[in-house]
């Protein structure tokens, strides 16, 4: 045992500069990977401590974020562990020839792979604690974590520090100890068996299931567990299919590249991709799953953004128009306050929201009416049409309730059935007297006016018999004052101060105030943060693997140059070999992730709120990053001819 451990550590240390570099790279990669995972875990823990997070979905959320970042990190570490893999596998096979049993050889390999990884992981842990005060104080995408303790759960720390070296060891040992009969074989240049066509199945199958889950869903219909299950299941199968299909895609593209008359560069790249399609896709897989999840997540987030609460809060935060209610004491007289507020710069309109109600009992209809002027109404719903001062009308839809439809007489009260309270009987508006607006709700129905005015009927305030009832209302209840505020000029906070200055007893409320805005904004920030991490780790891993492969093919490159192949051709070949899988993969990942996310949006009926802009930005950023990384590998790939390289060629 001691012999194996000793040998493993000696091998890990190496003696040539190239081997030392590899050890250093492993340490650094683990340091970075562990640090990153701990930061993400601490950030997630701080986020969910904020009050705006919904309790039920939390574990799933944490798991998703950790997995989405963790996967590319794991792939990066595995990639680093597989650097110079061919040589190291061969060396382990040599040990087998000498007479080391499979188990002992695996131990040597594990120690070799694990030694640097363990050192790096522990250093990462130290780095996290050392840098913690710095990270905590950072303002990351508008999130403020300084109030939290900013530390990950203890069990998660142990898990990360243990898991990362295990990933390295598993990756280093994964292909198994090669049978010794291949000891004398050079690295295989025969084409790998073509990727089986079964790989083409899961992706479309998953998408079909996702589509089926949304098919035939009636408006207003409850989304059952079956549909939800189908969506999630289909999504998982699609993700698997995404990873599975890349080698086939790569191979198809490779075949194309070889046949097309594009010059030698294309053909070389095509041949190389033909020989090793799976090698490329392993590395790209981590990146793609990350992008898939991010794209889908962004879509899902769109559902939240579709709620009126969110839209209103978004407006309020971003300088749009906001509706506020100010609750005034009965005795204070809402008209006066309204008049005073209306004259304030930034207040577009202020009016008391007078309301009359029916009794809402058995046998009686249940409707309410807004009493005011057309200008009040238009202030709240600017695109309302059909309002005429002096004429009562239905809001949005003609009423159909018995006792509250054209031809009936509606008994309007203060809301109390006390017979001593004043009431008034008015004829219901005719069937052609309707005020409408263009705003539609989730189900395609128009309720903008009803929602804004909290009523189904409009009654002009000069209708005879109405004022006494309103006076009675004012005497007993707090009449809300509707304010339309332009938050670019006057923020909600400033308004509150203003109102308090005028009437200390008045209360300002945002009827749409909801924690969900904070939540959604937080989620969006999280999504972009995760995207950045996923792209960074995935692409860095790709670059490392590509450059390592290039370095191990140095001999071949020099031979090609000696024979007369220009460096441009070699570079072109490398460009195609790197750019094609990356760009195809990125597009495919974002497209399929978006498709699954769209399925979700369709199920919850938020198809209006698809965040195409965000998705386009995500695609753009990913493509640019991918192209940049491909360019880096191109620069590294054609070495200058040096004497020692010729000797080996």
């Amino acid at each position, binding site marked *: 045992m001691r*012999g194996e451990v*000793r*040998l493993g550590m*000696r*091998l890990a*240390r*190496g*003696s*040539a500069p190239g*081997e030392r570099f590899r050890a250093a790279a492993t340490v650094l990669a683990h340091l970075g990977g562990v640090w990153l995972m701990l930061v993400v875990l601490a950030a997630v823990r701080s986020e969910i401590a904020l009050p705006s997070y919904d309790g039920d979905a939390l574990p799933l959320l944490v798991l998703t974020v950790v997995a989405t970042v963790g996967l590319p990190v794991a792939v990066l570490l595995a990639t680093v562990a597989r650097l110079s893999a061919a*040589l190291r596998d061969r*060396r382990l096979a*040599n*040990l*087998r*020839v*000498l*007479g*080391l*049993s*499979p*188990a*002992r050889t695996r131990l040597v390999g594990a120690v070799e792979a694990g030694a640097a990884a363990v050192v790096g992981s522990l250093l990462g842990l130290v780095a996290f604690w050392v840098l913690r005060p710095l990270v905590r104080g950072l303002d990351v995408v508008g999130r403020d974590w300084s109030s939290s303790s900013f530390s990950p759960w203890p069990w998660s720390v142990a898990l990360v520090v243990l898991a990362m070296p295990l990933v390295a060891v598993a990756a280093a040992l994964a292909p198994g100890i090669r*049978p*010794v*009969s291949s*000891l*004398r074989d050079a690295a295989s240049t025969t084409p790998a068996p073509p990727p089986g066509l079964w790989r083409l199945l899961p992706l479309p199958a998953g998408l079909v299931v996702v589509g089926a889950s949304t098919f035939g869903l009636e408006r207003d219909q409850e989304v059952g567990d079956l549909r939800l299950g189908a969506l999630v299941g289909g999504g998982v199968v699609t993700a698997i299919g995404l990873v599975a299909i890349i080698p086939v895609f790569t191979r198809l593209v490779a075949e194309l590249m070889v046949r097309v008359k594009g010059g030698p560069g294309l053909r070389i790249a095509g041949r190389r991709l033909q020989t090793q399609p799976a090698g490329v896709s392993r590395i790209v897989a981590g990146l793609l799953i990350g992008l898939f999840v991010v794209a889908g997540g962004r879509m899902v987030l769109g559902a939240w953004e579709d709620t009126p609460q969110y839209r209103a809060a978004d407006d309020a935060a971003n300088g749009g128009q906001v509706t506020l209610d100010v609750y005034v004491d009965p005795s204070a007289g809402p008209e006066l306050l309204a008049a005073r507020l209306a004259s304030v710069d930034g207040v577009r309109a202020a009016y008391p929201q007078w309301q009359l109600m029916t009794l809402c009992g058995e046998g009686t209809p249940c409707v309410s009416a807004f009493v005011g002027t057309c200008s009040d109404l238009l202030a709240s719903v600017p695109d309302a049409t059909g309002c005429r001062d002096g004429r009562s009308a239905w809001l949005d839809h003609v009423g159909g309730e018995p006792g509250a439809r054209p031809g009936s007489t509606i008994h309007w009260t203060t809301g109390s059935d006390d017979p001593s309270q004043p009431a008034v009987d008015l004829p219901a508006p005719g069937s052609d007297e309707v005020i409408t607006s263009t705003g539609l709700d989730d189900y395609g129905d128009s309720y903008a006016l009803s929602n804004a005015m909290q009523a189904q009927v409009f009654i002009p305030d000069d209708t005879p018999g109405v004022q006494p009832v309103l006076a009675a209302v004012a005497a007993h209840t707090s009449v809300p004052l509707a304010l339309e505020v332009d938050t670019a000029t006057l923020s909600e906070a400033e308004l509150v101060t203003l109102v308090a200055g005028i009437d200390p007893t008045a209360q300002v409320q945002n009827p749409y105030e909801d924690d969900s805005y904070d939540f959604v904004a937080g989620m969006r920030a999280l999504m972009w943060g995760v995207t950045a991490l996923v792209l960074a780790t995935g692409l860095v891993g790709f670059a490392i693997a590509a450059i390592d492969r290039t370095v191990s093919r140095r001999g071949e490159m020099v031979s090609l140059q000696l024979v007369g192949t220009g460096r441009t051709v070699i570079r072109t070949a490398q460009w195609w070999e790197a750019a094609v899988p990356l760009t195809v993969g990125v597009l495919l990942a974002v497209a399929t992730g978006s498709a699954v996310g769209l399925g979700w949006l369709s199920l919850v009926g938020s198809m209006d709120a698809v965040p195409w802009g965000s998705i386009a930005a995500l695609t753009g950023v990913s493509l640019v990053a991918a192209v940049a990384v491909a360019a880096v590998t191109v620069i590294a790939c054609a070495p200058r001819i040096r004497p020692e390289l010729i000797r080996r060629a």
Partner: protein
Amino acid sequence: MTVGATSLDDAVSAVDLHLSFGATPALRGADLTLAAGEVLALMGPSGSGKSTLLYCLAGILRPDRGEVRVLGRPTADLTERSRSELRLRTMGFVLQGGELVPELTISENVALPLQLLGTSHRESVERAAAMLETVGLGGAGARRTGAVSGGEAQRAAVARALVHEPEIVLADEPTGALDTVNGEQVLDLLLTTARARGASVLLVTHDHRVAAHADRVAVMRDGALVPERTT
């Protein structure tokens, strides 16, 4: 000596070995005996199964049919682990590329079998140094594998093959990658040192001049041994 009759003195023997890689047969009833202290050259065109036979004798490959004996003991029933241990203890290898471990120095490479056998670090280093002297690499122990010439690397391989005093040395084209002069020297070294320690040597080669150094030459064709002339 007739093929097929094994005596207790035999270092290693194979009787009626059959082995196929998938659908391709590599050994078709190969019989071979390496007597104690003998140097046997195994020749044949490429594809005849020479290396396969060597690896079967070493216990690295398992034949589909047939019996392999090492120092009189049949190896068919041994587990992978036992066969590895047997190989480590009783055999030394000189392969065409040398196959030294690049991360280790020359002396660490030579000491490797001893260390794997559990010999103390100090003793391993001493014996490795002595071995390096024998092969003429006395001062080169601290050099890295990449810093020595092909001939020097093969000499180190010879040293490594004999440092733990194995009974059997298996050499697969040991001079294949060397020029004639270097090759002669390495071969001489291997055979002299092995003979001095009483080890048996199986020398797989396609080079007649190399085979001419052996006590006996066996020829393989199509996965089996060509019957020796009885004169």
